[in-house]
């Protein structure tokens, strides 16, 4: 590519950006962390001192250039310092998921041959000690919280603050070496290695260079006009590329402050206290928050409830338009302003979104109602599409062009093309260097011209030019007539209904689509209570004709919405049944991260699948179940199979797979 090996102004590495920030933004806050009930603050100048002390301490411990340093813990300033200190001495930080089991850590630490680890507390120390024997290259471990560790053998175990103290003491001895190593870093040196979570097979180490991180951070920061005045709350796993980009890449590029919550449980309170201006959360977080709001409003007094309903209806009607700067009548604007004083403002403040200027969600599909709820309050929530291999950004939604069903336009500097089979490919300055010690995967993912396969199928929408992601490319199939079959897309639409917990859509190689549906016991149970429907078990509730009627209306609504989409109108669900048991990871029907295993389910419930397609109206079935303690049992039931109304599809365009 045409980039030079050095960025403008000599800012070719994160440590170089740190030096700049320590001079330019010396007295401005760089990190905050709530501890002992108070927000503790470090300015950029102070942070630089802390990082330097740690870097000197690492030199003192014998860290070599090119060594891998594992970082294991929750979001704390100390760990961000650790990453930058490791970079400063020419080592490569490898953040790990702190909740991974010892076995998974062993795999990653062995794969990268980590010599050092910087960890949170006794829990993490114990995990690493458990697997230490298998890690031939592993030497020293540094921990932050000394609690419970006093009696441990400290030959190769060090307390974070002691390492820093030793570093300060050895300042004169090592400072020249540190400066030399720091200055050697350029755009081509490795910035960080992040392991992909590995839903398929073993985790892969994605190597990202300073160019990848800084270019991705720079262009995305310009895209959203991020400045040094932003406040972010760092609460997402440090091993995830997004946190690295937001809390290090963009924070160092722009010079804004990273706030760390007191603990995972206090995140909601801390969010409110900080009031971030730039915020990221996966859809699940927004969904939970919305549910909490709704539950609390159910318990509110009559006047408050009436005000809330009245103004939220107004917000849903005009809020998104006002946010997008579209024409709205003066009267509507005035009502909205009143609502802002009475409802929207206080609500946003309670949620911690009072100051959000740019908010993003990504990772999976977000329900349109959830998305619109936040947008209508005036929160600029947008979607992006990305992955570790791209240093996050592939597409972004520009302000004013935000929709729940697209992921936006190519991010600055990113080229995108759609392959014949519908798979999305991209090429950008953020594109990863290679998978560590895995040339084969590197070659199959990234071609010599730098194009990377995302593994997702999608298409560009005509008119808006926005990318729409449909499904994992390997899940996309063809129906009997050769039209594209995208099960996940339909399942997501079904799952947007609170009453539907899971859905499995079949149709690959068949004439029409059919679905298994799992009801959500909480939502449907609540509904049953309100409607005086008695039930003794999940199974009984799932078989209740009124529940089936309700699910049928949901399915038909999804069908109507699918019919409007020329690409996917033929994926309408013709027949469905409600399963008599919840799909469960213990039975192998889902992965531990709650993704349905279509193949396993198709085989296990072969009889049910057959019944969906042979026209029968009910079927008796017996299923083996595994209880939590590992015992096995079986349940049997007679399931109703319903036909759902479909909207006839007339003349429609050919699909991209053509």
């Amino acid at each position, binding site marked *: 590519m045409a980039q030079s090996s050095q960025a403008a102004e000599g800012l070719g590495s994160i440590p170089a950006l740190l030096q700049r920030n320590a001079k330019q933004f010396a007295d401005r806050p760089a990190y905050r962390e709530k501890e002992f009930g*108070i927000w503790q603050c470090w300015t950029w100048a102070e942070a630089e001192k802390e990082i330097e002390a740690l870097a000197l301490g690492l030199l003192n411990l014998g860290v070599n250039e090119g060594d891998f340093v594992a970082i294991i813990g929750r979001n704390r300033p100390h760990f961000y310092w650790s990453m930058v200190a490791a970079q400063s001495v020419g080592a490569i930080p490898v953040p790990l998921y702190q909740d991974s089991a010892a076995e998974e850590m062993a795999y990653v630490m062995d794969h990268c041959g980590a010599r050092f680890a910087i960890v949170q507390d006794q829990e993490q120390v114990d995990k690493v000690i458990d697997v230490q024997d298998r890690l031939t290259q592993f030497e020293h471990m540094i921990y932050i919280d000394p609690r419970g560790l006093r009696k441990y053998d400290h030959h190769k175990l060090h307390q974070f603050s002691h390492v820093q103290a030793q570093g300060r003491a050895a300042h004169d001895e090592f400072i020249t070496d540190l400066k030399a190593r720091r200055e050697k870093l350029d755009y081509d040196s490795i910035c960080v290695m992040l392991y992909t979570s590995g839903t398929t097979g073993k985790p892969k180490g994605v190597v990202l260079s300073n160019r990848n991180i800084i270019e991705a951070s720079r262009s995305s920061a310009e895209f959203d006009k991020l400045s040094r005045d932003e406040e972010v709350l760092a609460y997402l796993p440090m091993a995830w590329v997004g946190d690295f980009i937001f809390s290090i890449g963009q924070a160092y590029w722009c010079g804004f402050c990273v706030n760390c919550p007191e603990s995972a449980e*206090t995140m909601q309170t801390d969010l409110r206290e900080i009031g971030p201006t730039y915020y990221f959360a996966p859809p699940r977080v927004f969904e939970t928050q919305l549910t909490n709001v709704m539950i609390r409003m159910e318990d509110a007094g009559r006047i408050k409830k009436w005000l809330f309903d009245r103004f939220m209806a107004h917000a849903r009607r005009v809020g998104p338009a006002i946010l997008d700067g579209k024409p709205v009548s003066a009267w509507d604007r005035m009502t909205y302003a009143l609502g802002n004083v009475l409802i929207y403002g206080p609500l946003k403040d309670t949620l911690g979104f009072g100051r959000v200027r740019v908010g993003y969600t990504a990772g999976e599909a977000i329900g349109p109602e959830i998305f619109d709820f936040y947008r209508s309050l005036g929160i600029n929530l947008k979607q992006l599409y990305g992955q570790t291999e791209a240093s996050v950004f592939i597409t972004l939604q520009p302000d004013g062009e935000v929709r729940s069903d697209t992921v936006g336009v190519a991010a600055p500097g990113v080229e995108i093309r759609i392959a014949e089979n519908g798979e999305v490919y991209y090429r950008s300055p953020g594109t990863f260097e290679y998978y560590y010690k895995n040339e084969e995967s590197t070659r199959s993912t990234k071609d010599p011209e730098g194009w990377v396969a995302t593994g997702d199928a999608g298409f560009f929408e005509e008119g808006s030019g926005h990318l729409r992601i449909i499904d994992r490319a390997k899940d996309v199939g063809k129906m009997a007539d050769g039209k594209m079959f995208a099960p996940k897309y339909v399942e997501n639409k079904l799952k947007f209904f609170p009453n539907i917990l899971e859905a499995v859509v079949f149709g690959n190689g068949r004439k029409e689509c059919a679905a298994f549906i799992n009801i959500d016991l909480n939502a449907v149970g609540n509904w049953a209570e309100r409607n005086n429907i008695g039930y003794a078990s999940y199974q009984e509730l799932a078989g209740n004709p009124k529940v089936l009627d309700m699910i049928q209306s949901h399915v038909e609504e999804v069908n109507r919405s699918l019919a409007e989409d020329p690409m996917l109108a033929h994926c309408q669900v013709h027949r469905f049944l409600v399963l008599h048991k919840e799909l469960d990871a213990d039975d192998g029907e889902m992965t531990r991260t709650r993704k349905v295993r279509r193949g396993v389910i198709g085989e296990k419930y072969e009889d049910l699948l057959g019944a969906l397609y042979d026209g029968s109206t009910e079927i008796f079935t017996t299923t083996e179940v595994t209880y939590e303690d590992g015992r096995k049992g079986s349940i049997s039931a007679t399931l109703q199979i319903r036909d759902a109304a479909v909207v006839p599809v007339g003349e429609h365009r050919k699909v991209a797979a053509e």
Partner: protein
Amino acid sequence: MKDMDTQGYTTADGRKIGGVVMEMKNITLRFGGVMAISNISFDIREGEIRAIIGPNGAGKSSMLNVISGFYNPQEGEVIYKGQKRPQMKPYQVARQGIARTFQNIALFEGMTVLDNVMTGRIRQMNAGLLAQAIWKGKAEREETENREAVEKIIDFLEIQHIRKTPVGRLPYGLKKRVELARALAAEPSILLLDEPMAGMNVEEKEDMSRFILDVNDEFGTTIVLIEHDMGVVMDLSDRVVVMDYGKKIGDGTPDEVRNNQAVIDAYLGVAHD
């Protein structure tokens, strides 16, 4: 005072246990005609975790109440830090650095966790009524200092997320933890725990065990605990006193106690004469 043992010993995991800090000598406690405790003697050493176990009605809680000064035994004496302790009110005992938790949680349900734990600092608040009322000078300074100490305990017991939650809304396991926090806030030298794990599930028990060990390790607090769960007792304690029907039937390390015939009989049930 005679034969104060200052030697101490070292535990298997390398902890240093100091000399005797409290000694119970021939304690007898009667309620009317009922003999709750009869002629029991044992000692508590500095920095150790000392358990009192026994079947229901063995007199364990009575024993703890004698230590905390709630009951005054008819016979026998309590020797604390080498001195015979005169008859005392519980608050006087508390001032001597002995804090406790209760079998059936005794917190202020309507107050927040933070306020509850703050009440544990009462011993460290000396400002006058007027100063407290207008919250100036010494009162303000004291509150800041005490809040800091309390925040450290909140951090230690990992209850930051419920800092501002009224105790009445908390689940049982957390209430137990708040009670421990309040006892710790008093910076006791001896901590009395009355069935700290009662009614907890396995996970909560594991958490509580870890906190008890950490308290002992971090602050060097001597801990006396009553517990039903034998597994927990045997794992946690350095030495165990076993009571049955108000009598001491065993005293020693968990291993010694486990192999003591009288103890086995008491637990498996042998006819009493």
